[in-house]
């Protein structure tokens, strides 16, 4: 979701964010309820078809799935050990399909539209004191802040290495926390300057 949107004009791109999120929930629910290799195979066919319809290319989808592969392999190995190969295939396949399907939604939907859909869903909670717009802003800021923190982490890691303290956890954690807090401070100031809370 970190700004992974691939611009396009496909039918998947044009579908409303709320519809895509609902279908995603239905798809994930289906994988969870009907646990069988046949359903996983069917799910795979659905994801392939949607990727083809979306015309975003296979690579961006694989890029979304790749970080989870190690976890899925560990989970599959555990299932083989604790249950059987069939269960391992279903669990691992379902996990990969879930990530891929969620990936297709984020690749074809602007973050803004996703957040709007979340804000719409939360609107009835206004009666119990929830501010949907504030929740949407917090989610957007979270998405925006992840790459900033990654970049801060890389800077701190390089600085630690330059000073020959590669193995010092403190030399990594302390400056990272300080920089993160400083960033949060500046971000707050920027939000104030842009009229948030006015």
């Amino acid at each position, binding site marked *: 979701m970190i700004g992974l*949107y691939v*611009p396009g004009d496909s039918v998947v791109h044009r579908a409303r964010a709320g519809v895509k999120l609902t279908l995603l929930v239905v798809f994930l629910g289906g994988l969870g309820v009907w646990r069988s290799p046949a359903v996983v195979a069917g799910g795979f066919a659905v994801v392939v078809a949607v990727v083809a319809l979306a015309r975003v290319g296979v690579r961006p989808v694989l890029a979304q799935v790749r970080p989870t592969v190690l976890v899925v392999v560990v989970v599959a190995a555990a299932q083989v050990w604790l249950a059987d190969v069939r269960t391992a295939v279903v669990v691992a396949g379902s996990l990969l399909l879930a990530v891929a399907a969620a990936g297709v939604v984020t690749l074809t939907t602007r*973050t803004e539209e996703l957040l709007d859909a979340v804000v719409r869903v939360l609107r009835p909670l206004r009666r119990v004191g929830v501010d949907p717009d504030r929740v949407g802003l917090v989610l957007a800021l979270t*998405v925006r802040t992840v790459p900033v923190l990654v970049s801060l982490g890389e800077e701190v890691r390089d600085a630690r290495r330059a000073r020959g303290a590669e193995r010092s956890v403190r030399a990594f954690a302390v400056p990272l926390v300080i920089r993160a807090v400083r960033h949060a401070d500046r971000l707050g*100031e*920027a939000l104030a*300057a842009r009229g948030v809370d006015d």
Partner: protein
Amino acid sequence: MIRLEGVSHRYGERWVLRDVDLRLAERRVGVVGANGSGKSTLARLLNGLVVPTSGRVLVGGLDTAKDGPAIRRRVGFVFTDPDAQIVMPTVAEDVAFSLRRSGLSKAEVRSRALAALDRFGLAGHADHPAHLLSGGQKQLLAFTAVLVTDPEVLVCDEPTTLLDARNAARVTALLAELPQQVVLVTHHLEQLEGFDRVVVVDEGRVVADGAPADALAAYRTLLL
């Protein structure tokens, strides 16, 4: 017209500005000073990000202590680090964020955001993640997101400090073209060429104020 009347400010026990009286009516005003001189606080006073401990700051007759929201609609602010200023995940979304209370429809907001991005050469990046832009592009995005609301005054706090020479020159050229009143805090004295007035701040006080040539000469003497 911006007026600072008897303005002093402190953070905790540390006074960062003392007895500042200024009337800023010129179209291009530069503010220079050493690190820790109080110039960034001075800039933040101008759109109510900082409210003075004593004295008052008036923008177009409005008091920043009482009319903060109205003043922030009139006075745009560009920070040193665009990474802290860009709050939305993608380029167009960040510009659109500035227009969220404009009363325009979503389509109009997007159209206006795209037009603003086009003006600053960023239209091709509209749907790109903001974090993938170069440092110069990020700063241009920060400017775009502020200028899309068409503020009357633009306050910039060292907007080129993190930029290379080429991007700093782009920002300088951009500032020169703007119709708005610009208050520029900078260490890059060459950026003040063509400015109408330069204010020199040292240890929280205005120590020189006037035509750029005279004020910068005083500043250089101060640095010796």
